[in-house]
């Protein structure tokens, strides 16, 4: 049996008086890819940002309910600790523009003041870039600025930067929405490989993507979790009418 890594129970999130995530309960099994999908404004991104406590950075944003990493309540841990264990990749690639490719990958260590031997550093950079399937493309230009890369490469650089910290969970917020189809394919392929070592939570508004890469899918609608099931099951035999309408394209 798979063990659960993240679980939320009756979890709510607000922007001021605006109730954007309503009473969501979910259990996320380890070493799986979980897709979170739904029409825009359904609270899927907000829910994702609650998992590593990025939501609360927005003025007026609050949460309520239980969110656990293994047995620990995330909202009782220090946010720094949470984010060290749960990495995140954003919708738009956001490499640090003032750092080289090499320094971008090692940024989590370097900017945090963690002392590493040179060889150790090189290892982490190479390993992370290999895992992110970017090594071959950038190994000769490691000391160029990361912003010179293409969009798809930048996004994989951001993935490398996140996995360099060896988090247990990786949150991905529509990581391919700003990318072209070829870059999208290479990122999706990468997600498959990453599953061996990490648990991935992928927010997407692209049903095909959810169907292609995920093991389980959660469908959000108007802030509620409508359905959560094995991906195959959900796409072939949805239990809820709203899911049915969504996957047959009746609202976007």
């Amino acid at each position, binding site marked *: 049996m798979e063990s659960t890594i993240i679980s939320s129970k009756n979890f709510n999130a607000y922007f001021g008086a605006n109730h954007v995530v309503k009473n969501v309960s979910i259990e996320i099994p380890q070493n799986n890819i979980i897709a979170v999908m739904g029409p825009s404004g359904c609270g899927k991104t907000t829910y994702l940002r609650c998992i590593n406590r990025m939501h609360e950075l927005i003025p007026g944003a609050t949460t309520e309910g239980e969110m656990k990493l*293994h047995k620990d309540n995330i909202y009782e841990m*220090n946010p*720094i*600790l949470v984010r*060290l*264990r749960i990495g995140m990749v954003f919708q738009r690639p956001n490499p640090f523009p003032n750092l080289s490719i090499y320094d971008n990958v090692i940024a*989590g*260590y370097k900017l*945090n003041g*963690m002392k590493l031997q040179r060889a150790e550093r090189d290892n982490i950079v190479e390993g992370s870039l290999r895992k992110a399937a970017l090594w071959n493309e950038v190994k000769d230009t490691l000391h160029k600025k990361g912003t010179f890369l293409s969009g798809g490469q930048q996004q994989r650089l951001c993935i490398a930067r996140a996995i360099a*910290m060896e988090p247990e969970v990786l949150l991905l917020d529509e990581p391919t929405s700003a990318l072209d189809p070829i870059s999208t394919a290479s990122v999706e392929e990468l997600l498959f490989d990453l599953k061996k070592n990490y648990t991935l939570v992928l927010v997407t508004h692209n049903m095909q993507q959810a169907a292609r890469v995920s093991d389980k899918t959660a469908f959000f609608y108007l802030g509620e979790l409508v359905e959560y099931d094995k991906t195959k099951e959900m796409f072939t035999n949805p239990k809820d009418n709203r899911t049915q309408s969504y996957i047959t394209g009746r609202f976007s």
Partner: protein
Amino acid sequence: MKPIKGFSLKKVRAESAFKRTLVIMALVMIVIAAGIFLTLLVQSLPSIKALGGHYLSGKTWDPVSDIYGALPFLLGTLLTSFLALLISIPFSYAIAIYLGEYNPKGWLSGFLKNIVELVAAVPSVIYGFWALVVLVPMVRAIETKVGAAPYGVGILTASLVLAIMIIPYAASLGRELIRLVPSSLKEGAYSLGATRYEVLKNVTLPYTKSGLFAGLLLSLGRALGETMAVTMVIGNTNILPTSIFSPSNTMASVIANEFTEADRTVYLSALIELGLVLFLVTVVINLVGRMIIKRFTNE
């Protein structure tokens, strides 16, 4: 579970210490600003108590006989500042219109922009020294021609040098504001066959009116508070000015000249009261100017 790298309580503590420091710095600004006002107020109290309302209306300033009437300085300040503003307007508006509307790009406007910035950069004491040696003889020649007493120094000389010094403020602000005029408005007028001048007169200037006025206020604020250049060429005379050729004194220049000589409490306090008035006037003018600009740019 593996141990978590890169996490320590020290970091958490440093984080909250940093946040606290930021708050303290924001508070420091409030403390300094309030402190300036309160210090001026408290130090002027002896003068306010001793002189009351006569202070502002009194025509005589004679510390030797312990008489302190600030009217000559109020008048001197207002005359020099407004005259300077009047002289500067055609130039600052011309620059603003040229850089904002007629030729916003191009090397020539880049050149003019740099010149304007350098005019703002020249230290006031150098303006004063130059005016003392170059402008004063010129004004003296004018005075001889029109039959006024040929002092050379005085309100006109101070206004001339002040005018040069304040042009950059109204000019660069005006340029920014003129650029904010939506091009759709101008294109509309052009498409109806309007000439450049008509677009300027009927579209650009009416649209930027309030902003340009605010630019004048900010320039006026600068002129009122400007000390060194004025002190060097105003003539330092504590009598009521009778014409624009009269030697005079402004609030700032009296303070500069007499502050370190003031040996009695009321004398010193009377000077500080000048500072208080100057502070209140310039701060109010500045805040009003900024408010207008904020409202203008938010629209």
